[in-house]
């Protein structure tokens, strides 16, 4: 059903908002100013929301953060054997090492990490802006009356970007995913450039650097680098000159990644680009005891070469102080503790994992951007806590598809963006094989929604253009409002605490709760490097990092919970 006849539309186009459409220069200048203004406002709003979210969650951290800080220590003292860990990639710990040049005290270390995360967020925002620039330039290929105003894409893009940053990879989490996002946005921006026929030597070297840094930030980017290179080769067509340039990109990527692969393999005694796939396969497919204290319970999965030492059976207690002088050894280098694990092919389990992950991903996409009440935790881990409703993005997408039915070939529109969709499909497929979380796919989800909307929205008249623009803006607004409402709630809670005089938590210090524990231990006479025990969920023993002590034994949380705090009730001897 046509939204408005083309004659009516052409009548209205001349009087639209008082701008004389017969003066293209004036209109172009006005559009450019509007675009810049919207982009600037969107960036400022995004920064404000991220800062507020970071401040609100400044007491929170992540177990990997402890590991990355310990790895950074190892790099700084030149202890390569300890630093070259199979499961964790090195780029983020290297940034931690640089951060430590500012000598943050133990009390302010977590704040420094959060500040670094905010800096990385700013870099990601800049990368996303580059992507948006190329995205809009690609739009310019379309005749001006057949495309949507740039400001509507900007509003949609920056809303989705901010939503993905806060909901999928919250900036308080010390994880390298934000770096990967920054690189992925730049790679996609480059794809749009290459599609327009532009590949200079500088750009090909830049692509290689992005792919190399991607691998050093997160291991999944190693196989993905070949997917990205393959797509680039297909984009360049049959021009031999352009293909040489892509080969240069591949060479630069290998030049950056191979040295690390060699030293990592040398340190671990076998060829590997990462141990993440092997360990996740053992945990997810072979269902070997997850994360720590694998004792070789089922011999079919092998016998641990050097397991943690079980010192008590009921409730279970483990000792692990001898292997590494770090905060919490079991999560520092899982490859060490899981040495000896045998992986077996289990097609049935593999299929069930793929089905589970695909289901979680589809639910996630269908419910995006989620309700205001959706917990961040639910979005962080896609498997749990997702509302079984249809989200606004899918609703608006379907509405536009149905409105355009019979006029736009949805599939043709989507197929035109194959160069973006192939890498997105590849990365989602790779993660679906084993395990994925929201933060792994944040950038891909943003780009996916952008190209999906771009594929289906083609205006026919000024009226339909306005309606579809309103639909895009609505999608953006809903995504932004879900964030703003959540942040607003947090602000109200914080204000209430201040009003009732509960201002003990410092205004800027991160991890204050854990700092109190660390301070208690220091006041009790414990010094850096001294061994301590832990009862409970030691993964989040951030106090241990702040106190610079080493956890050498633990009674895990499940043991403490199940046996009614038996260990504690026995009392000190």
């Amino acid at each position: 059903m046509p939204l408005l006849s083309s004659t009516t539309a052409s009548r209205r186009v001349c009087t639209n908002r008082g701008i004389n459409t017969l003066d293209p220069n004036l209109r172009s200048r006005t559009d450019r100013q509007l675009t810049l203004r919207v982009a600037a406002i969107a960036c400022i709003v995004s920064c404000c929301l991220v800062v507020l979210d970071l401040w609100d969650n400044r007491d929170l951290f992540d177990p990997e953060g402890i590991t990355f800080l310990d790895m950074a220590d190892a790099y700084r003292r030149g202890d390569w054997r300890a630093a070259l860990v199979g499961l964790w990639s090195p780029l983020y710990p290297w940034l931690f090492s640089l951060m430590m040049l500012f000598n943050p005290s133990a009390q302010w270390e977590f704040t420094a990490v959060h500040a670094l995360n905010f800096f990385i967020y700013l870099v990601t925002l800049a990368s996303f802006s580059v992507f948006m620039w190329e995205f809009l330039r690609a739009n310019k290929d379309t005749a001006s009356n057949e495309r949507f105003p740039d400001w509507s894409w900007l509003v949609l893009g920056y809303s989705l970007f901010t939503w993905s940053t806060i909901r999928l990879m919250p900036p308080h989490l010390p994880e390298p995913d934000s770096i990967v996002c920054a690189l992925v946005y730049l790679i996609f921006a480059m794809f749009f450039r290459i599609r327009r026929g532009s590949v200079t030597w500088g750009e090909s070297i830049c692509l290689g650097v992005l792919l190399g840094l991607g691998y050093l930030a997160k291991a999944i980017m190693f196989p993905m680098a070949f997917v990205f290179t393959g797509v680039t080769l297909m984009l360049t067509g049959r021009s031999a000159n352009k293909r040489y340039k892509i080969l240069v990109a591949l060479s630069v990527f290998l030049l950056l990644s191979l040295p690390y692969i060699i030293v990592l393999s040398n340190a671990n005694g076998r060829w590997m680009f990462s141990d993440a796939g092997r360990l996740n396969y053992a945990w997810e497919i072979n269902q070997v005891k997850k994360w720590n204290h694998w004792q070789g319970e089922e011999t079919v999965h092998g016998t641990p070469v050097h397991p943690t030492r079980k010192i008590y059976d009921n409730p279970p207690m483990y000792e692990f102080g001898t292997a590494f002088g770090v905060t919490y050894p079991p999560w520092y280098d899982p490859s060490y503790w899981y040495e000896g694990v045998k992986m077996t092919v289990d097609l049935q389990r593999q299929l069930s994992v793929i089905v589970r992950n695909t289901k979680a991903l589809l639910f996630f996409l269908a419910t995006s951007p989620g309700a205001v009440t959706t917990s961040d935790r639910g979005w962080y881990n896609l498997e749990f806590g997702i509302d079984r409703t249809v989200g606004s993005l899918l609703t608006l997408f379907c509405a536009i598809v149905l409105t355009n039915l019979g006029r736009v070939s949805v599939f043709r529109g989507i197929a035109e963006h194959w160069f973006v969709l192939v890498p997105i499909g590849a990365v989602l497929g790779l993660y679906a094989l084993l395990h994925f979380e929201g933060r792994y796919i944040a950038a891909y989800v943003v780009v996916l929604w952008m190209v999906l909307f771009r594929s289906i929205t083609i205006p026919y008249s000024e009226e339909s253009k306005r309606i579809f623009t309103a639909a895009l803006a609505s999608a953006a607004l809903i995504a932004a409002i879900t964030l703003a409402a959540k942040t607003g709630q947090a602000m109200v809670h914080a204000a209430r605490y201040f009003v009732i005089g509960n201002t003990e938590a410092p205004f800027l210090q991160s991890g204050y709760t854990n700092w109190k524990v660390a301070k208690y231990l220091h006041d009790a006479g414990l010094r850096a490097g001294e061994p301590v025990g832990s009862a409970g969920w030691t993964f989040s023993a951030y106090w241990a990092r702040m106190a610079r002590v080493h956890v050498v034994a633990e009674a895990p949380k499940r043991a403490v919970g199940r046996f009614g705090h038996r260990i504690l009730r026995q009392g000190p001897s």
Partner: protein
Amino acid sequence: MQLFRDVGAKAVVAASVPAGSAPVNWQQIGDTGYYAHVFPEKREQVVFNEKNRQQSESISVEINQH
């Protein structure tokens, strides 16, 4: 607890202990939800054990006398 001590731990920190469920000789660390017990230094422990031994001996003597 002795096991923690045997492996060299100078202190034990416990997380998420419900209020009132921890024994009195554990110190609650402010409002953090954490509890801690710091083991006495080895030298103090020897004195502590010696006192205990003397006390036990005197109690045994008393019991025997009765």
